Structure formats: C-alpha cells, structure tokens
C-alpha cells in the first residue's frame, strides 16, 4: 500500500502534541460526540427550569409547599451549566487521557494528501481515508481535525511540525475537496 509521489499533492511529516490532540478531540466531541446538540439540550433544561420557576411563583416561592419544583429547578439549572460550561472541559480532559494512554497517537506520522484521499502512516499504523468519507474537516490556527469513516475516530494534525507552505497547500486542498465538511475556526485561548 504505497502512494506514488506523482499522485500526492501535499506530503509532510508531523507529530501531534497532547495540547493539540486534546483541543482537537474536544472539537470532535462537541460536533459529533456526546457534546453534539448540547445547545438544544441546555435550552430544553432552561425552559423546564423556567416552567418550574413559574409554578413556584404562583405559590409565592414557598418551596416547602412545592419541594419537587424546587429540586427540579436546581437540577435543570445544574444541567444547563453542565452542558454549556463544563462539558467542553470534560471533553478536553478525556482527550488528554486518551493521548496519555495511547502509544500510537503521539508518534510521528507521514501524511500524503492526494486528489481523492489521504494516507497517514508510520511503523505501527497505516490509514487511508477518502475525502467522501469525511464528516468534518476543521482547521484552526494550530491544527487540522479530520473525522469520518465507519469508526469516526478523529485525526488531529498539528501545524507545529509543518512548514507554512505545506499548511497553506493543505488548507487549500481541504477547502476544495471537502467543501461541505470544511470549517475554519478560531483557535481556543491558551491557558498558562
């Protein structure tokens, strides 16, 4: 399974660090994983909380008369806060755990991006994916995230080890070949 140099449009060698992987994994989970639709879920809990608040208001906010409403109100508010503020942090934390537990993710890979597919490989792992299989093709200032295939595992490519020319060529290629799936997002702020 080899890719001839003539077919390859962009080729480079890259290694992904724990920070890029955890941020990329967070993006993947928020779009395709357990975080997908979190805004809708948070909204539902918010409206339920407002309903409970309204019911309590009719009883003059006497929670001893309606303890159930008060408990449901607290739970709904907690769920809103969880979905909006805590869930992204949890996804990033999971990404860090995955990186630390894996012997393969932190290794150096060679990438070859061709017209219809890309190949990533090293001594331990070989993966070929067609652009038509991709669900997401996300670019930030620091990395690319490509998700798709049957397993839908994210591939996070750090721009740190790429030169500027290769990064621009790859960005142009992904914009062209993955029109519907491509997104350009701002990088998250670094917490030092």
């Amino acid at each position: 399974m080899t890719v001839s140099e003539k077919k390859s449009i962009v080729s480079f060698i890259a290694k992904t660090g724990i920070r890029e992987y955890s941020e990329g994994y967070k993006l993947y989970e928020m779009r395709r994983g357990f975080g997908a639709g979190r805004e809708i879920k948070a909204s539902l809990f918010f409206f339920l909380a407002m309903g409970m608040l309204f019911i309590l208001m009719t009883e003059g906010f006497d929670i001893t008369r309606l303890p159930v409403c008060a408990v449901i109100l607290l739970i709904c508010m907690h769920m809103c806060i969880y979905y909006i503020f805590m869930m992204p942090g949890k996804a990033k934390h999971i990404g860090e755990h995955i990186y630390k537990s894996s012997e393969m993710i932190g290794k150096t890979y060679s990438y070859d991006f061709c017209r219809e597919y890309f190949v990533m490989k090293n001594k331990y792992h070989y993966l070929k994916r067609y652009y038509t299989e991709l669900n997401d093709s996300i670019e930030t200032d620091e990395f690319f995230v490509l998700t798709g295939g049957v397993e839908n595992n994210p591939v996070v490519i750090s721009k740190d080890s790429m030169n500027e020319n290769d990064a621009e060529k790859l960005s142009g290629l992904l914009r062209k070949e993955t029109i519907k799936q491509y997104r350009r997002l701002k990088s998250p702020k670094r917490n030092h």
Partner: protein
Amino acid sequence: MEQLNVSYLPTLEDHINMTLEKLNMSVPKENKIIFRIIGAIAVMCATAGFIYLNENIIQTICWIILTAAGLFIISYYDITRPYLERSRASRFYNYHKKDLCSKTVMIKDGKLIVSDEASKVKIPFDFIYRVRQTKNTVFIFYDEVHFCYIPVRVLSEAQIKELSELKNKGN
C-alpha cells in the same frame, strides 16, 4: 504461543452485542446502584407526598412527575439506555452496511496485526492498553477509547485462551 489468524465480517448482531457490552463495561456498577436507590427514593417520596401533602392540582401533578421520574431513573440502565443504544447501533449498522469490510486479526512474531481494506495496525504487545472478554465479544483496546473487537463466534477455545494470554503480556 500459537499464531492467531482470524478474519470476520461484522454482522448486525455482532455490532449490537459489541455496543451493548461496551456500554456495560463503561458504566461502573456503583452508578447503576446509585441510580436505582435515587429512583426508589423519588418514588417513595412521591407516594408519601401524594398521600399526605396533596392540597391542589399543581401538587398532584408534581407528585406524578416525580413518580414518573423515579421510575425512569430506576429503569434507565436496565431498560431505557440499552434500548436506545440498540436502536442507535442498528441504525448505524444499516447506514454503514455498504462501507463495512472484513477485518483480519493476527498474532505473529510477537506483534498484534489488525487490518482491513482501509487501515492496518501492527503493534507490539506493550502497546496494547487492555484486553477484555465479555459474553459475545473480545475487546482489544489501543488506548482508553479506541479499540478493535472480535466476535467470540469466530474464535475457537484455543484462540480465546491465546487472547487471554495476550492480556497478560500487554499489561
């Protein structure tokens, strides 16, 4: 160690079994016990409230909601979640049916080799994070989340034993 060489094409039943057994593995037993206790408390409180603290229609509705919530919480990990996961797994399999290809799992020369049409993993035993066997599936984890699975139906007794030894070599 005997060389393992197994090829299989995952069926719908394999995929559903894998999904349900992975769900079972990922949820701690304590969570299930806590959910059942909380659900039981909710139902008991709702029953007591309905009998002793029932002055108007709004309170009645609240107690009914609490009873329903309690029953839902009790049955969540036993009925609701498995049902949802089974439906999701079935939809996923039917959607990806044409993309699925046969997988080959080999143990050769001290390395685990998992390959299909699109990918190949060839790693020493040290790289394996965990091996778990359940009723219908053997899971080989590369890290906390990513894994490959082999349905027990395609394995012989000797091969299952070999994979158990792999678990000891990997840890």
